[in-house]
């Protein structure tokens, strides 16, 4: 390979102590500066690790005015003190943050693959990337010898399924050591559009391929390519059960084994993660009218039967140890082997496709009416290798298909593409255009928020209608659940700091199906607790799935089944076993609360984080069109009568829709009031000084920003 070393930095290898290296790695690909930074006690106390460290480092690195494409924007990747242990399922996550090209505020993604744990064991608690390189580069961390290099990368292909594999082969010591190398990369689309992702690899020894896990949301791939980074490569060969150096290995092992056994006994009858991963949700969502169909118009259609999880189970190779990190017995990372795409540059070549996971099967399947599972697999493959986020892609394509249906778009405006519902050839062509950097794909790849503006300004479309059907908030596309009938989930989505992603709170069953949180106060409590609890995974380097996608056999009999109390106790135990620090379920929430509020203030500092940023498009709240109202007329009429106290008899659909809308929008605003109050924020969504002091996030630089808004 024709590579020049542009900069080299040698560091001292030393063992990890109780989950921490106590240093981070800074790499500026523009100035070619490489250095280590100490991790202070303050950082550990206030920011813990993972997303906390990312945001703390990024806060120092950027200015109030920093845009995604400025050299000082950073990509931070951190791992957390629990990350990399091989005993407890779901312990290998990296958290990526950057100022997002879609939202202008920090975005955070939780991603599997081996890069995070290996970089941690190479010696660093976080990796901070800054600057813009003059030519394409690779950043290489050799954790076996203690060398970091910036190298030129002139020759190789960019698309991830090829690049990850090539680099693993290049940097591995020998053919039997591929599993010690991991690569972060994106794809050609990240040169051209904004709805992009990063792929984190892990070498699959049985399949002999590089598997790819996505840091999906918010356009991280575009920032990566803007920086001129082609790939990050890490090598670390010394992994053992105690590499993370826990204070109490026996407790860690015991807690892990207990969960392994629970998974072994329960997964087949609970979520079937082993067999089909998160795609097991397809029929459940369709049954409950929650599966997004036709740009979130409907939650259920008979056609969705063809995307039943049994179809995906049949496509996935069964019986493999499909964990995205060692020790994850939930093994949800399913793959379709020897898939032969029918379109595009890799047409006819056998490839291994990671997924589809639920989000992809819904977003690139039901939401755009792609009813053939193999089409979904193909879109999934090209999204991944081109570096496109399947969630934003699905929601953006669904949006343009609805615009096409309404005559806002036509063949003339789409460059000849027929964007009728279910035209998967056209959807795939949009994807190929994103990679080639041409055609209408470039517009779709800007995401829903920018498209709304373009369609209104250039095509004279009704801006209000576009606002109502364009499923984005804060600039980020919604992920794939219907929130219309769950007020709590409307909040769960739209109040999420980075934009509407389900990783802060998923309350639909609790709220809509089981009616466990009927009052505003109950909903606000849930919208406080669950986002905080789930934030903790991102501080520690953990995966959310082993928390509640497997439950202890007696979980339903506990006081608070939705919290899965036994698993919360496990987390407390493994935290103590690794770090040796005190912990209980209250301190756990408090750790999160500090970082969560810091992130909120960070959003405000970058120009977001206001109450108006927390408003959903009406499609997420209620029926936008008469067609939608009529399709569920009985439900909506009943609601008018019972909840609003209006007799639907004799009213036109338009009148009924109007009353429904006013009611629902008002309910949403009341919910926001309740949640802000519970979170310790003002009515405008600004954390109060008193609250910041109470939780211990009253750093001077934080207060300085907050005071501008009080």
């Amino acid at each position: 390979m024709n590579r020049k070393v542009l900069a080299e930095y040698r560091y001292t290898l030393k063992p990890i102590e109780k989950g921490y290296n106590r240093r981070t790695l800074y790499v500026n690909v523009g100035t070619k500066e490489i250095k280590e930074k100490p991790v202070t006690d303050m950082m550990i106390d206030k920011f813990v690790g993972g997303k906390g460290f990312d945001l703390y480092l990024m806060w120092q690195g950027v200015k109030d005015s920093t845009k995604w494409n400025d050299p000082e924007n950073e990509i931070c990747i951190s791992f957390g003190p629990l990350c990399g242990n091989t005993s407890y399922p779901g312990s290998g996550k990296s958290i990526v943050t950057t100022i997002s090209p879609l939202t202008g505020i920090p975005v955070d993604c939780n991603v599997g693959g081996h890069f995070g744990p290996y970089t941690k064991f190479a010696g660093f608690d976080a990796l901070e990337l800054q600057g813009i390189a003059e030519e394409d580069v690779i950043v290489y961390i050799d954790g076996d010898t203690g060398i970091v290099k910036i190298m030129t990368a002139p020759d190789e292909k960019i698309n991830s399924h090829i690049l990850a594999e090539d680099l693993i082969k290049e940097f591995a010591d020998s053919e039997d050591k591929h599993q010690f190398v991991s690569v972060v990369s994106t794809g050609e689309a990240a040169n051209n559009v904004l709805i992009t992702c990063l792929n984190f690899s892990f070498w699959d020894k049985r399949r002999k391929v590089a598997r790819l896990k996505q840091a999906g949301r918010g356009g991280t791939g575009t920032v990566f390519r803007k920086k001129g980074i082609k790939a990050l490569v890490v090598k670390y060969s010394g992994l053992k059960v105690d590499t993370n150096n826990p204070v109490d290995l026996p407790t860690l092992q015991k807690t892990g084994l207990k969960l392994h056994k629970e998974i072994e006994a329960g997964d087949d009858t609970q979520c079937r993660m082993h067999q089909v991963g998160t795609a097991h949700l397809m029929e459940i969502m369709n049954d409950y009218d929650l599966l997004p169909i036709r740009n979130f118009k409907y939650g259920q259609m008979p056609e969705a039967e063809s995307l039943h999880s049994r179809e995906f189970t049949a496509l996935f190779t069964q019986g493999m140890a499909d964990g995205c990190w060692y020790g994850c017995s939930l093994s949800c990372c399913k793959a379709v082997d020897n898939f032969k795409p029918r379109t595009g540059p890799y047409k006819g070549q056998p490839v291994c496709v990671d997924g589809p996971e639920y989000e992809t099967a819904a977003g690139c399947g039901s939401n755009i009416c792609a009813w053939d599972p193999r089409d979904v697999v193909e879109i999934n493959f090209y999204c991944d290798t081109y570096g496109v986020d399947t969630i934003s892609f699905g929601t953006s394509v669904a949006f343009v298909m609805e615009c096409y249906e309404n005559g806002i778009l036509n063949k003339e405006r789409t460059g000849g593409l027929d964007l009728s519902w279910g035209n998967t050839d056209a959807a795939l062509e949009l994807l190929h255009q994103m990679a080639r950097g041409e055609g209408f794909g470039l517009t779709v790849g800007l995401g829903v928020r920018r498209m709304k503006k373009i369609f209104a300004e250039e095509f004279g479309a009704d801006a209000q209608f576009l606002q109502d059907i364009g499923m984005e908030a804060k600039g980020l596309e919604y992920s794939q659940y219907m929130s219309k009938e769950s007020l709590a989930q409307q909040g769960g989505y739209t109040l999420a700091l980075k934009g509407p992603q389900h990783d802060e709170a998923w309350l639909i069953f609790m709220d809509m199906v089981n009616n466990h949180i009927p009052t505003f106060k109950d909903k606000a409590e849930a919208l406080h607790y669950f986002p905080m609890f789930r934030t903790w995974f991102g501080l520690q380097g953990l995966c959310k799935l082993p928390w509640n996608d497997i439950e202890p056999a007696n979980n339903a009999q506990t006081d608070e089944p939705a919290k899965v109390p036994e698993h919360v106790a496990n987390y407390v135990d493994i935290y103590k076993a690794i770090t040796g620090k005190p912990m209980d379920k209250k301190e756990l929430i408090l750790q999160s609360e500090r970082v969560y509020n810091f992130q909120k203030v960070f959003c405000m500092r970058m120009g977001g984080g206001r109450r108006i940023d927390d408003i959903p498009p009406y499609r997420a709240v209620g029926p936008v069109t008469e067609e939608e109202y009529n399709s569920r007329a009985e439900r909506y009429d009943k609601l008018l009568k019972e909840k609003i106290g209006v007799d639907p008899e004799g009213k036109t659909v338009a009148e009924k829709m109007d009353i429904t809308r006013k009611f629902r929008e008002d309910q949403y605003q009341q919910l926001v009031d309740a949640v802000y109050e519970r979170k310790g924020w003002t009515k405008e969504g600004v954390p109060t000084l008193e609250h910041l002091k109470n939780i211990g996030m009253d750093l001077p630089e934080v207060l300085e920003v907050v005071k501008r808004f009080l």
Partner: protein
Amino acid sequence: MKVLKTYPEKCISCHVCETTCSSLYFKEDKAELSCIQIHDETNPPVMNVCNQCQACVAACPTCAITVNKQGVVMISRSLCIGCLMCVAVCPTDSMRTAFGKHNPFKCIACGACVKTCPADALAIVEE
């Protein structure tokens, strides 16, 4: 396939096999470190040992578990990262672990215990 076969009706619960096994592999006379386990709460006792069924092979994420030419399931200590996933999938609870040790352990049908058993309750057989 080479297997350690047990004859519980002959077993006199003297636990010599456990001493032999743990002393050989861990240099310690400790029943919990033995690959064979004699549970003498019942009569005849329960003799638990790996039957080389191979269920653990596919579960190992690092491919540390392989089957040798004689059909014996072996763990590579250099590849094992101690996740204990194999322990959870073993249908007979014969993949053994002692918390604090780095790797699980199991019977490799070496036959050392056969030689020390005073009651002929163990044998290496081809199945």
